[in-house]
C-alpha cells in the first residue's frame, strides 16, 4: 500500500498547476464562466499541446497511453483551478467510452483528432430527463438533458430506448434534426438539451451499450469526483490562508476555536474524499474497480466537498459572497459535479445493493 503519486504523476501535477496558474488564473476562469459561450479555444489548444486531451488515448492513436488514475490527478488540478471547458465529457468520458465500446473505425476516425483537441465529443448518457427513443427504422426522437458543452461538440454520444433494449449511438452534432438548446445553470458549466426530431441513425453508429454505459459512468463519476476534490482542496487552502490573515477584534479569526474546528473538518473532508477517489481510480486503472468503490467515492465526495464549500463561505464571511471572489466558482463546480454522472441518491442506491440490502 502506498499513497504517494508516482514521480510521473507528481510531474504531471506540478506542470498542470504551473500551467493553469499562468493560463487559467481565477480571473480568467471567472471571465469564461460568465461568458455565455464559455469556451476558450486558446486554452483548449494549449492543453492539447501538453497532451492532456490525449492522455487516456493509446500511443498508436495519437495519445500517450496514460492510466485513468493519471487522468484523475490531472482533472483534480483542473477542479482546483476552476478550469472551464469540455475536458471531462470529451477527453475522459467519451474517450474512455470509445476505447472500450467503439469499433475500430470509430476509434481511428475520432480518437487521433480528439487527442489533438480538434474534435470534441460530448455525451448524453444520463437517464435523468432523457426521453430519446430509437425506432425500428433507425429514427431518433425525444430529448436528452444536461449535455455539457454540446454547443462546441463535433459529435455526440447519446443513449436511447429501442424497445426492449437500450442503444448508445454516436452521431455528428450537426446532423439534420439535432437541436441543441441551452439550459442556464448557476455554475460555469454550459449545459444543453439535445432534442432529436426524427434523426437518422445507421447501425455503424451503434456502440456496445452495456460496456459503453458502464465505462462512461465509471470514468465520468471518477472525473467528477476529482473535480470536486480539487475544488475542495482549493477552498481549504484559501480558507486557511484567510483564517491566518483576517483580523477581527484584535486577533486573526483562525485563533478562535470556531474557525479552528471548522478548518479541522475541512481537512478531514478533503483528505478522506481524495483517499477514496484515488483508491477507486487505482482499482479502475487495474481493471478491477467494483462499481461500489466508484459509487462510494462519488457519494462521499458529494457530501463532503459540498460541506467544505459551505464551511468555506462561513469562514470567509461577506467577501466570499461577491462574484469576484474565487470561492463561489469552486462551490458551483462542486455542485455541478455532484449531480453529474449520477447524483447522490443514485450512487447511494448502488452502494445499498452492493452491501446486500434487499429491495
Amino acid at each position, binding site marked *: 500500500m502506498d499513497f504517494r503519486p508516482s514521480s510521473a504523476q507528481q510531474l504531471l501535477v506540478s506542470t498542470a498547476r504551473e500551467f493553469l496558474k499562468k493560463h487559467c488564473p481565477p480571473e480568467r476562469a471567472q471571465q469564461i464562466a460568465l461568458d455565455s459561450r464559455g469556451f476558450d479555444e486558446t486554452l483548449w489548444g494549449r492543453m492539447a499541446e501538453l497532451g492532456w486531451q490525449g492522455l487516456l488515448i493509446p500511443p498508436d492513436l495519437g495519445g500517450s497511453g496514460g492510466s485513468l488514475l493519471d487522468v484523475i490527478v490531472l482533472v483534480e488540478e483542473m477542479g482546483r483551478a476552476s478550469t472551464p471547458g469540455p475536458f471531462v465529457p470529451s477527453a475522459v468520458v467519451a474517450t474512455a467510452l470509445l476505447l472500450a465500446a467503439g469499433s475500430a473505425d470509430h476509434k481511428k476516425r475520432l480518437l487521433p483528432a480528439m487527442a489533438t483537441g480538434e474534435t470534441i465529443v460530448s455525451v448524453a448518457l444520463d437517464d435523468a430527463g432523457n426521453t430519446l427513443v430509437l425506432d425500428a427504422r433507425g429514427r431518433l426522437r425525444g430529448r436528452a438533458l444536461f449535455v455539457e458543452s454540446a454547443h462546441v461538440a463535433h459529435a455526440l454520444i447519446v443513449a436511447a430506448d429501442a424497445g426492449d433494449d437500450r442503444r448508445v449511438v454516436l452521431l455528428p452534432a450537426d446532423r439534420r434534426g439535432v437541436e441543441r438548446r441551452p439550459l442556464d445553470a448557476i455554475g460555469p458549466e454550459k449545459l444543453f438539451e439535445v432534442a432529436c426530431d426524427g434523426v437518422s441513425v445507421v447501425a455503424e453508429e451503434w456502440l456496445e451499450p452495456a460496456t459503453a454505459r458502464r465505462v462512461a459512468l465509471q470514468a465520468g463519476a471518477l472525473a467528477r469526483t476529482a473535480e470536486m476534490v480539487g475544488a475542495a482542496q482549493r477552498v481549504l487552502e484559501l480558507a486557511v490562508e484567510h483564517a491566518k490573515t483576517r483580523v477581527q477584534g484584535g486577533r486573526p479569526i483562525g485563533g478562535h476555536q*470556531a474557525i479552528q474546528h471548522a478548518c479541522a473538518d475541512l481537512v478531514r473532508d478533503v483528505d478522506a474524499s481524495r483517499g477514496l477517489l484515488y483508491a477507486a481510480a487505482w482499482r479502475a486503472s487495474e481493471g478491477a474497480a467494483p462499481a461500489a468503490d466508484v459509487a462510494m467515492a462519488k457519494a462521499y465526495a458529494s457530501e463532503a466537498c459540498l460541506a467544505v464549500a459551505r464551511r468555506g463561505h462561513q469562514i470567509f464571511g461577506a467577501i466570499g459572497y461577491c462574484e469576484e471572489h474565487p470561492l463561489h466558482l469552486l462551490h458551483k463546480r462542486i455542485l455541478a459535479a455532484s449531480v453529474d454522472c449520477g447524483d447522490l441518491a*443514485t450512487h447511494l442506491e448502488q452502494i445499498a445493493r452492493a452491501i446486500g440490502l434487499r429491495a
Partner: protein
Amino acid sequence: MEFGFSAAEQAFADEVRAFLRDNPLDRFPLDGMDAGYGSGAHSRAFMKALGERGWISMCWPESFGGRAEPMFFKLVLFEELALAGAPFGPLAGSWQTADAIIDYGTERLRREVLPAIARGEATFWQGYSEPDAGSDLLALKTEARRDDDHYVIRGHKIWSSHAGIATHGLVFTRTSREARRSRGFSMFVVPNGTPGMDIRPIRSLTGGVYHYEVFLDDVRVPVELMLGPEGEGFQALLNGLDSDRFWGRFYKAPALERVLRRLVDHANATGASADAGLRRRLAAMAAELAALRVLFYRAACLLRDGAPITYETAVAKIYADETGQKLARLGMDLLGPWAPLRPGSHEARVDGEISHAYLTSLGHTIAGGTAEVLRTTVAVRGLGLPAEPRKA
C-alpha cells in the same frame, strides 16, 4: 398560556389574504432582487400598495398618522405576505426607521420623512458595515464633522442592502474621536442623491445585485437629519439590536413554509413523495419550521411585553438562517440534476427558486452578525459563560 390568534388578528389576516387575491403579484414591478431572507424582492410599487391600505403606518400612534394597532398586526401582515411570496423587501426597514423617528426623531424628520414612509415612498439602506469593521462595528472609520448647521460625512460603507434603489441611507458615523470606545457615534438619515454620495453595486455570487458599497466624500447633511442625540448612536444601535434581529428574520419561517409547500407539490408531481426517506426529511423540515415559528413568537411576546431579552432573538436568528440553508439543501437534493438550473432557465424546476435560495442562504449566517458571533452572544449574554479574552 395561550397560543392562538385573537379574533381581530384573524380578521386582519383574512383582510390581507383578500388583498393578495385581489392584487396578483405579477402586477407589481420589481426593482431589486430577493435575497432569500423571506421578505421577498424589492418593489416600490408593492410598498405603495401597502401604503395605500394604511398598513405601513397602522401601528404608529394616532398623533403620527397611525391607527395604533397592536404590534401583532405587523406579524400577521408579515406572515401572510411571506407565505404568498410578496415583494415587501423594504418593509421591515421602513418600520424600524419610522419607530426610531417617532421615538427620537427631529421635527423635520417627522414632518418630511414619516409621511413618505407611510405612503410606501421612502425606503432605507443601512450604512453600518465598513471594509474593516465587519462584525466589530466599533472599529468603524466613517466620520461626521460638525460645520455650522451641517455635518460633513466622509467614509466608506459596504454591504448596504438595496442602497441603490432606496431613498435614504441610515449612515452610522463617528462624531467624536475623544469619547470612550462606545460613545461618540451618531446616526444620520441621508437622502440618496445628496452630493458626494457615490453608490456602487456589488455583484453577488447569484449574479444579481443586492448589496452596494457607498463612498461618502464630504457629504453635507443638515443637523436636523441626525437621528437621536449626538454621540449616543451606538447605545441606540445596541438597544435596537434585538428588535432589528427580530424584524429582520421574523418572516423567514413563513417564507420557508412557502418553499416547503412548493417542494411537497414537486415531490407529489414527480412521484418522489413515495420515497420514505424524502418523506421523513420533508416532514422533519415541517417540524423545524414550526419550531422556528415558536422561537420567533416567543421573542415577539417578549418584545411586545417589554420583557428582558438576552439571547432569544439571537437564537431565533441563528436558527432561521441555518434552517433556511438546510431547506435549500434538501431542495437541491430533491431536484438532483435539475438542481443547478437558474430561475428562468429552460427546463428549470420549481422555477429555479431552489438554486437561488441555496446561493442566497449562504450569506444569511454571515449578514447581521455571523452565526459564530451570535452563538457567543447567546452563551455569554444569555447563559453567563465567561467571555473570551479580547486580545492575544
